[in-house]
Every structure is written in structure tokens, then in C-alpha cells.
């Protein structure tokens, strides 16, 4: 207390000409604020720069994609059949249709080259994977959070899920290849087999994100259910799942969006097709596989196909992600009362 008074006294003496309280306040405010304004401007600038740098890779990917594949993207490309490309196209050809006309007899080649079968195959195999992984994953998460708790079995499952999340996706492809495809020979390669591999990939992600979402539902809601004469499972069905639904949906959809772009699990499991195959059995193809095949080929036409498939895939994943966001914002409910 005394120290403060003494200090105050000294500064008053030091600022004798500015003893007018208003003037003194004014001076001090201006000095502090000038320094603050400088550091404020510097930090703001640094943050802007950081954000800008973070956006650079994203923007450049989109720019390159649009530049290389943008001109291919139209309704006919999205629905057209996949061309069988073998040789080299004449170097003079600029557009894919021109090259086709030059190179192939239009009667035997698909009238309009496109990635239609790959779009269908991507949607089909991803849907199969999601259908397998999402219900199982959510049920597993319910077990972990509502029943297993910190028990031994739950801990083992949680640990396995974490390890599985880290397993490279190509290993999932190999697993399904040996466990499923090999058993059925060439006929084993199908959208279903690819869906199995994608499900293996999605499952641990769905389990862990769903568990987090269930964990966010406050315990007092579970207690309220029980205090009203509800059994535990009734609370799970009537309170916990509805409350966690937006989060569960978002988590599942983000896992699905990621799986849609996977290449490795699909490579050995999906087989091949040039025509649209809407059946879960029989050879199929995905956009990711088209990119892989097209990019490896020495044929410039195949390369172009790869760019077209790439921009299509990015668009598809973007749509899935946007849908997930929309769903979560639409159904979002405040959990805490």
C-alpha cells in the first residue's frame, strides 16, 4: 500500500508540468496505445501471412487441377464410357475428343470418352463400405462408451481401433485381396470387395469419432433418464443417440468422404471395367483407380483422362464434405442446459 502511494507521488513530481490530471492521462494513453497499435498491426500481419501461406498449397492444387482437367469436365465426360487406350496419340491433338477422332475408328471406340463407370464405381464401393462400417462402427462406439467404459475388453478394442487407424490403407487392400478376392478368383474382384476394403479403413475412424461424440453427451442426461425409471439402454436409444446424432452423422460422413478418395485398398480388389457396372459383383473401377492408371500410362490421352478423373474426384469429395457440414449445422442441438 505504502509502496504504491510513494510511487504515485514520485511520478506526480516527475510530471510536474503535466499536473493537470486530464493532460497526464492523455499523454499516458497515447504512449501505450501507440506501442500497442504497432504490435497489434505486426501480429495481425503475421497471422494474415500464415493463413495465406497455409492456403497456397490448397489453391495451387485447385489451380493445377482446373488448368489441366477443367476443360474436360462436362456432362458427357462425367457419363461417358472409359476409352481403352493402348498406343500413343498423335502429338498434334490438343483435345481429347480430337485425339480420339484422329486415333480411333469412331464406330468401335466409345462415342464420347469419359469417366462415367468410375463415378458409379466410386459411389457404389464407397456406399457399400459405408453400409458395412457405419452401423458396425456406431454400435461399437455405443458399446465402448455406454457399456465397456474403462473395462478390459473396451480398452483392448479401443487400442486395436487406434492401431487400425494407423495401418496403411494398402494393407487393408492386401487383407481383403487374400481374405476375399483370392478365394473367388477373378470373379472376386468387385465393387463389393472394394467396399470391404474401404469398410476396414473406415471402421476404426467411425468407432473413435462416434465414441467421442457419445462421450460429449453429458452424464446428467443419462442420470435424468434413470431417475425417471428408464433402463440404461432406454436412455441410450431415447436420449444419448438423438443428442449425439449430428456429431455421429458428421463423423461418419467425413470418414466416407475420405474413403471415397482412397486408391490403394481399391487397386487389387475392384477389378476392371470400361462400361458402367451398377452391380456390386463383377469388375468395376473408381476415379482414384482411373487417376492411378492414367497417370502411369505413357499415353498423353490417358494422362488427360487422369486429370479429368482427378478434378471429378475432388468435386465429389467436396460435395460429400459440404453435405456433412450441412447436415451437422442443420441438426446441431445444444447439449448443455
Amino acid at each position, binding site marked *: 500500500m505504502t509502496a504504491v502511494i510513494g510511487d504515485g507521488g514520485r511520478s506526480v513530481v516527475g510530471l510536474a508540468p503535466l499536473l493537470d490530471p486530464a493532460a497526464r492521462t492523455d499523454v499516458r494513453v497515447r504512449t501505450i496505445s501507440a506501442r500497442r497499435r504497432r504490435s497489434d498491426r505486426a501480429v495481425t500481419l503475421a497471422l494474415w501471412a500464415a493463413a495465406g501461406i497455409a492456403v497456397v498449397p490448397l489453391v495451387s492444387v485447385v489451380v493445377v487441377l482446373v488448368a489441366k482437367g477443367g476443360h474436360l469436365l462436362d456432362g458427357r465426360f462425367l457419363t461417358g464410357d472409359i476409352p481403352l487406350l493402348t498406343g500413343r496419340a498423335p502429338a498434334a491433338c490438343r483435345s481429347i475428343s480430337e485425339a480420339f477422332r484422329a486415333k480411333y475408328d469412331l464406330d468401335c471406340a466409345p462415342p464420347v470418352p469419359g469417366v462415367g463407370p468410375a463415378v458409379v464405381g466410386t459411389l457404389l464401393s464407397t456406399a457399400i463400405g459405408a453400409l458395412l462400417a457405419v452401423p458396425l462402427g456406431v454400435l461399437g462406439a455405443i458399446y465402448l462408451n455406454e457399456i465397456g467404459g474403462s473395462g478390459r475388453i473396451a480398452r483392448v478394442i479401443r487400442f486395436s481401433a487406434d492401431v487400425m487407424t494407423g495401418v496403411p490403407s494398402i494393407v487393408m487392400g492386401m487383407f481383403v485381396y487374400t481374405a476375399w478376392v483370392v478365394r473367388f478368383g477373378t470373379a472376386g474382384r468387385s465393387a463389393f470387395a472394394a467396399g470391404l476394403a474401404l469398410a476396414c479403413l473406415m471402421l476404426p475412424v467411425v468407432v473413435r469419432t462416434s465414441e467421442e461424440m457419445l462421450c460429449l453427451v453429458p452424464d446428467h*442426461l443419462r442420470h*435424468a433418464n434413470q*431417475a*425417471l425409471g428408464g*433402463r440404461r439402454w432406454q436412455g441410450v436409444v431415447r436420449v444419448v443417440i438423438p443428442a449425439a446424432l449430428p456429431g455421429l452423422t458428421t463423423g461418419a460422413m467425413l470418414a466416407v468422404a475420405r474413403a471415397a478418395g482412397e486408391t490403394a485398398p481399391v487397386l487389387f480388389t475392384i477389378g476392371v471395367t470400361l462400361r458402367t457396372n451398377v452391380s456390386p459383383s463383377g469388375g468395376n473401377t473408381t476415379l482414384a483407380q482411373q487417376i492411378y492408371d492414367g497417370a502411369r500410362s505413357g499415353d498423353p490421352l490417358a494422362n488427360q483422362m487422369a486429370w479429368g478423373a482427378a478434378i471429378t474426384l475432388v468435386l465429389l469429395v467436396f460435395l460429400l464434405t459440404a453435405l456433412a457440414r450441412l447436415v451437422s449445422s442443420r441438426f446441431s442441438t445444444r447439449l448443455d*442446459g
Partner: protein
Amino acid sequence: MNTSTVHAPIAPTAPTALTMRRGDPPVEAAIGGTRHAGTPEVVLDVRGLSVSYGDRVAVRGVDLRIARNQVTAVIGPSGCGKSTFLRSLNRMNDLVPACRVDGSVTFHGIDLYDPGVDPVEVRRRIGMVFQKPNPFPKSIYRNVAYGLKLAGIRDDLDGRVERALRQAGLWDEVAHRLGASALSLSGGQQQRLCIARALAVEPEVLLMDEPCSALDPIATAHIEELMSELARRLTIVIVTHNMQQAARASDRTAFFTTEVGADGLRTGVLVEVDATDHVFGNPADERTMHYVTGRFG
């Protein structure tokens, strides 16, 4: 073990099966007990109750009878085991994994801790309101109808919901927006909604754990009024830190405190339980007097 003194004579437990169905004639009609009658009927008979968490005893040796159609207040310093005691009256302690209950709590002649008793049925008959309002993130209507749906009651849902909301003094405020989210209500309204939700299933006993601690004085007064209204039809046990509330709103008061044993462990014990006027005006135990007059010993 403890110095509980009982002034008013209390009749022995009325034997009624715990499996009594909803819609059976109310026990009070059969027994003839009403509020402030000469010998109130005992609804909950607690004998030698001890509750431990793991190997730590939280409350020891509670002997207490809770009379029908009365408001029983439970007071005492923080950590003395009031909530623990309250939760043991409708087996909410079962939800705490390491919790163990010894002694007996008799409800209509049946020990609630008998292995044959279904805790879910117990909680249906002995409702609970928590310290923090905890409505479900659903509509107002669905909150109140929740317990009814659990119990499989489908007839006259609307009427039952309305009656429960009226009893909780909330009807006029929410009648025009039953479909709105319960979370859009104010804290006091949410707490009354939780009371309505508990009342909808027509429990015989309502346990309230500091139901007003998150509320402002007006909302608190509202709920106190409600309690004396409700006590005409059911039995209320309320834990409170608010001495005035206990004095104003309760018929009987139980005072708990913490005893430090020779080993340094703290255990909650019931010091005395008596008519509220007695506890506040002329307590039998010195510790009670110190507590109610604001001096700790």
C-alpha cells in the same frame, strides 16, 4: 451411534407391495394419513444406513423415518453426505460403480436394497430432481412425456403432460409453445420443467437435491410455494444449503454433519431430525444449534 431424537410419534410402516400397480387406490385412502394428521404414516424407513465409496465411508449409521405428505429438509455442511443419503433413497447410488450401501431403506414394507427389488421400479415410484436443471435436448412436451412413454402409458398423454406442467406451475408460461426446445427456457423454468417431468409419472416421493441453488430468489420462491402445494399429494425430501428455505418450506428437518474419526477420516452422520420449528428454535444437539445459528464448532 448418533443422537437422533424423534419427538413426534410416527406410525410403523404401512405394508404395501412394491409391485403395486399404477391406478391402485392411493395408500393414504386406505390408511387415513394426511398432511399434519396426528400420526403421520411412514413412507421411507431408514435404518442403520451406511454408504461407502470404495473403502471410504461417506455416511454412517443413519436412522430416519420420512413421513407421508410432509416436506423433510436435509441440511448440513458441504461434504457431509446429504446428496449421498438422498441418492440412497431411490437407488441412484447404484449408478456410482464403487458405491456400497449397508443397512435398510424400507418403502411400503419392502427393503429397497432387497436383491429381488428392481431399482428401475424404485426410481419410477421415488422421483428425483437434481441440483442443476437437466432437461433433455428435446421439446418441452417430449420432456414431460418422457417418463410416461418409458412406463408404456399411451392414453391421455396430452392431459397428463398438461396436469404435470400445471402442478409445476409452468403451464401458463409454456402452453403456447410446447413444441419449443426445453433448452430455450430460462434456468428457473428448466428446473420447473424437470419437476414437471418427475411429477408426470406420479411418484409417491420426490427427492430434490438443492433444486434452487442455480436459481434467483423469485424462481426459488416459486419452487418453495410449489413444494408445499405438492406435499398435499406426495412426500418430499429436499436437500438445501439455504437455512431460510429449510425453515420456511419444510415440516421436518434432518441435520447431518461430518465427524472426524480417530483415524482422521471424515464421515457424515445424522445429528438430529425433528420438527423444523424444533430444529431451528430449540435444537437438541449443540452442533445443530451452532450450524443453524451460523456458528461452526
